[in-house]
């Protein structure tokens, strides 16, 4: 029998110093930014630059390492030793590089982007907190510690979304992000409760080891192991096994903006654009997918189905919403939700490798898109004067920027092609892999499980459309701002940004080409990355386990691959062509769209308002809680406190009654009793008089009476 104490006992490894450095260096960056206000941008960029180098160095040096765990004790509750565990494996190394690298580019970009902001040090300090917390999620291989950093990531997201807190919309968006994330986290906590009750540990490796020896008997989930030599038999209803997976997934639903909690991400665009690139596109929102990858083998068939369906629905809904937005960051936000939906769906169907692969490629091309959009917004902002005010994120004021910002245009275009998933670009490879696995999965499952496939393929079409609609509206046609503001020469001052802005965008654009991940290969099989992230085997008890895609013959995949690639590419092209036709310069739709305040028609409205999800939450859920809280407050004041206040009142009234009774009825008949009653009346009436001695005397009398009652 397995002794839990053995598998969670402290372990060290020569690399742990470096991991601690990776984790704590951003805290150093935070402190530097707080203390050295002026040089905060340079120093914090430098620190993150160094950690980037370190993470790349670690990744290259340890690429072939067998998964290694570092452990230590944190604290004990009761019999359970809680530990901190770090995992060194390819997934961790890849994530560490992605997080640090993009964080560094964003720091570098922000030096210029935030140059004029008076709260610059605070901004870089917050970026430091974020990088620290994100690295915590990546490094720790322990559900409790992941949750700790998970929440800290939520905090840094709150701080950065609300960075320009003078704007009401920004502070509201920050609140919304934190609270909606918390709703998901309730699930996470519930998952922790279930796993702790069953296994008495949060150490992921220990949880997995114990899951392997768990059995299902008569619908009960039974795990036997030893703690300090004592045998423990944990037994929960088998349904808790599925529930644990779904509950933990709820955490991912919040953080990775999945249906039905995706409403916070579009609002999160209130934060500075580099922050959107780092947190709300590349890293934090991907944390949910990373969590799913870490608990992948613990998910049972039912939980996985939920994950897959939620992912597919999210991908589709967000793609629809992206079709009609005016705000360039909103388009990118919805596109992010949609792509996250792909990743989550991938995890649900068992396409572990493909999902993580997409996480990495998406991190680069979406960060590239956001940073390019950031350049546009930043340069447009420079045109603003006291007389000329406009919304620099609104695509209706853009147009024709291809000539003004040529380098930005190319960076944006390349990243867009990766997003659409045209062959040769990184997004193609990972999306192709997901869609192929999805096709196989649907074939195995059959029936209603073709719906996710339909949704996912439809999303490819919409992605092509909204991406090119955006490109056409932003970069082609006439520069519309001079016409709108009436300042004719406004466009003359518009030009590409400096190196601080351009370099990160260019680097990310280069990494959006397929060769960065596959060399000369065409699909995921030839990718070094995909090989590193092999799909693990489910370890839940057999009767609960889903069918693993690993067990399907390679021939099945090969047979479908050509078809999937052709259909997906075809759909993407169709989307692009429709966009080209309807939004080419001076096309009817383009013209009417530019003039409109909001889309017309039911479809347009549903798309623009993101399926009215926000309105639903505001009008029903939020309103319900506000009303409920008002009602509770009323109940508290009127009913509970009313009763509390009524008791002395009744006492006073009865005292008066006694007095009246005493004076007019009793008095004169029985002098003695009248006298007594009068005293009682006086005594009770003064309950409200604040006479302390009397209270004490009264209480003793009361006690004596009660004792007499009890005794006799």
């Amino acid at each position, binding site marked *: 029998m397995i002794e839990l104490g053995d598998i969670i006992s402290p372990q060290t490894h020569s690399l742990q110093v470096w991991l601690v450095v990776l984790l704590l260096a951003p805290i150093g960056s935070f402190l530097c930014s707080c203390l050295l206000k002026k040089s905060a941008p340079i120093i914090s960029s430098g620190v993150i630059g160094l950690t980037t180098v370190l993470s790349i160095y670690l990744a290259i040096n340890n690429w072939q390492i067998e998964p290694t765990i570092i452990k230590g004790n*944190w*604290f*004990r*509750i*009761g*019999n*359970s030793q809680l530990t901190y565990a770090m995992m060194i494996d390819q997934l961790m190394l890849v994530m560490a590089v992605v997080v640090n690298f993009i964080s560094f580019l964003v720091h570098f970009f922000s030096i210029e982007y935030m140059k004029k902001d008076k709260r610059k040090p605070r901004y870089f300090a917050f970026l430091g907190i974020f990088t620290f917390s994100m690295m915590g999620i990546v490094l720790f291989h322990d559900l*409790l510690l992941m949750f*700790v*950093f998970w*929440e*800290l990531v939520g*905090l840094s997201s709150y701080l950065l979304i*609300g960075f320009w*807190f*003078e*704007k*009401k919309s920004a*502070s509201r968006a*920050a*609140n919304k992000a*934190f*609270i909606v994330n*918390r*709703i998901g*986290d*309730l699930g996470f*906590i*519930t998952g*922790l*409760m*279930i796993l*702790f*009750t069953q296994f008495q540990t949060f150490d992921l490796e220990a949880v997995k080891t114990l899951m392997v020896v768990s059995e299902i008997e008569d619908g009960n989930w039974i795990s036997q192991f030893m703690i300090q030599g004592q045998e423990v038999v*944990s*037994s*929960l209803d088998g349904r808790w096994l599925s529930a644990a997976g779904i509950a933990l997934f709820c955490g991912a639903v919040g953080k990775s903006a999945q249906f039905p909690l995706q409403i916070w991400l579009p609002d999160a665009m209130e934060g500075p654009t580099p922050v959107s690139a780092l947190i709300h596109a590349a890293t934090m929102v991907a944390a949910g997918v990373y969590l799913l990858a870490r608990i992948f083998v613990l998910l049972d068939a039912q939980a996985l189905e939920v994950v897959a369906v939620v992912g597919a629905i999210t991908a589709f809904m967000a793609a629809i919403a992206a079709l009609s937005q005016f705000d360039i960051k909103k388009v990118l936000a919805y596109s992010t939700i949609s792509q996250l939906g792909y990743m989550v769906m991938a995890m649900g169907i068992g396409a572990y490798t493909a999902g993580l692969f997409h996480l990495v490629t998406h991190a680069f091309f979406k960060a590239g898109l956001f940073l390019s959009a950031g350049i546009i917004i930043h340069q447009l902002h420079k045109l603003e004067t006291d007389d000329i005010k406009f919304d620099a994120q609104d695509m209706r004021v853009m147009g024709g920027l291809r000539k003004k910002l040529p380098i930005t245009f190319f960076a944006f275009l390349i990243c867009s092609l990766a997003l659409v998933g045209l062959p040769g670009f990184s997004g193609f490879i990972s999306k192709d892999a997901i869609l192929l696995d999805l096709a196989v999965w649907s074939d195995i499952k059959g029936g209603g499980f073709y719906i996710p496939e339909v949704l996912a393929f439809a999303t490819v079409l919409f992605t092509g459309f909204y991406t090119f609609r955006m490109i056409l509206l932003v970069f082609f046609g006439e520069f519309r701002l001079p016409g709108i503001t009436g300042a004719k020469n406004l466009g003359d001052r518009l030009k590409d940004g400096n190196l601080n802005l351009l370099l990160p965008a260019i680097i990310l654009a280069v990494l959006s080409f397929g060769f960065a991940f596959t060399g000369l290969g065409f699909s995921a099989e030839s990718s070094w990355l995909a090989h590193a992230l092999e799909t693990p085997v489910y370890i839940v008890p057999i009767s609960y386990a889903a069918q693993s895609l690993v067990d399907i013959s390679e021939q099945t995949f090969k047979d479908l691959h050509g078809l999937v690639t052709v259909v997906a590419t075809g759909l993407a092209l169709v989307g692009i062509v429709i966009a080209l036709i309807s939004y080419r310069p001076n096309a009817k739709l383009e013209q009417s769209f530019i003039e409109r305040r909001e889309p017309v028609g039911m479809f347009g409205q549903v798309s623009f308002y993101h399926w009215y999800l926000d309105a639903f939450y505001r009008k029903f859920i939020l309103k319900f*809680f*506000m009303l*409920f*809280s*008002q009602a*509770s*407050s009323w109940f*508290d004041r009127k009913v*509970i*406190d009313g009763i*509390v206040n009524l008791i*002395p009142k009744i006492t006073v009234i009865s005292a008066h009654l006694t007095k009246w009774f005493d004076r007019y009825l009793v008095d004169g008949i029985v002098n003695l009793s009248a006298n007594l009653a009068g005293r009682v009346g006086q005594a009770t009436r003064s*309950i*409200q008089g*604040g006479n*302390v001695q009397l*209270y004490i005397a009264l*209480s003793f009398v*009361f*006690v004596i009476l*009660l*004792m007499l009652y*009890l005794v006799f």
Partner: protein
Amino acid sequence: MGNLLSYIIFIPLIAAAIVLVLPKKLEHSYKWVTLGASGLTLTLAILTILKFDATKTGAISSESTLQLVEKTEWFRISLGSIGSFSVDYFLGVDGINLSMLLLAAIVLFIGVIASWNLKKKRKGYFSLYLLLSSSVLGCFVALDFFLFYLFFEFMLLPMYFLIGIWGGPRREYAAIKFFLYTLLGSILILIVMIGLYNSVYDPVRTGEMAGYNMSSTSIEQIQALVKSGQIETERLVKSFNMIYMADAMNYIPGSVLDNDVIKTVFGQPARWMAFLALLIGFAIKLPAVPFHTWLPDAHVEAPTPISVVLAGILLKIGGYGLIRTAFIMFPDGAYHYSWMIGFFGMLAIIYGALNALAQKDLKKLIAYSSVSHMGFVLLGLAAFTVEGVTGAVYQMFSHGLISSMLFLIAGVIYDRTHDRLIENYGGLSIQMPKFAVFVGIAFFASLGLPGFSGFIAELMVFLGAFKSSHVIGAIPSWMPIVATLGLVLGAGYYLWTFQRMFLGQFWVKSKEWLPEMEDLNTREYLMLVPLVILIIIFGIFPSLLLNLIENGMGGFIEHITASINP
């Protein structure tokens, strides 16, 4: 330093006497005397922690588990045929009250700093404050029920005047309400205390009285003799000793609260009724829904330092009392009512949070958040698991620090404008950025962000409460799951308040306030910074506290689960 605990109790008392004696000319020295006394008490409390041997294990119902014990007979009154009435001066610490002692010493010290600028009737204020300190500290270390009750009641007096004289506009109403309500609880406790006195005997003294040599006779032998009737009931020496009350063997056969032959009161077993009376008595103090309505009034009207002491320490006496008396003495009753206790805990978490969401007054909001957070104490206790009860104690400790900080924050604003309405402020973080940082820390700590002590406490309560239904069946597993909703509501009311008061454009209701809106001064840093440090330390290194209380809580859970068959 043999009588460490006595020093802790009496130093404030002596200081109170000094303050009373010092002439009005030396008015400025009152606060220094008070500060010195609290500082000394805090030092001694820390010394107690250092002296405490955390590795010592033992049954909760055995005096040998206690440390730093001081026990002498205080007085004995012969009541003729009823027997004699004897009270001990009995102090000691174990894993249950140690953390509370430390908390009280810390909060009382910070309360003095918060009282620094008080101008009105300083002599009365500081002497009452010291009196309050003394009785609060005494309450946590007293192990004789009579002594405990004495300290417990004695708190009311200074508290009544501190609210009633130095409070806000409706201070008299609030003071009376606080006083009457708590008194009502006290009566219930008093009844049970009397019942207990009539049901529990002191095996050591009984043995001595019966002529046994207690150095060679064990307590178990005496207990066996009593059980078999060889020592007659008339010859038993009754006792207020809380440790003896914990041992079911010390109950007099045939007495009201006897464990073996169950007596009934109102058709219910007397022991259950006794538990219920203690539960309600201490639930008023905690306060638990629906006995909580005195709290918002008392908090709103009390001056800042008194709010701090009230939220930081006095509420914890409710939780501590539940553990020390109700749960330990009547574990059978506790188990019988565990569903109800858990339910009211869960209810308090959500109901308190919903009410907090609706408040317009910052202090009221914090008061209701206290109600919500104290719900975790009930939920954790009701779980009957070691995680749950440890979480409950951790929550008391952590809430003591966090709520102190929250009330100090409300005080910072009130000092400047004498107004606490949330809607009268906006964008304060522009004008008072450093203050905003502290408010942010306090709010996030209170809403349970990891890294702060509150998270550890709430996590343990959740884990223990969920585990409960699967190991002991005290409360069903849906209770903690529903209770997690409190976390979202908590984030809701704190962040919303922060948004309204601190974010957006700077704005205050009255122009006259503008010159007052300065950032924190040194005194305010002195009271806030230590709390922040402690909240973070206990959030990151929970073992600092858990190691001290681990064996105590283990013994406690062993004790209360021993009497029930899962």
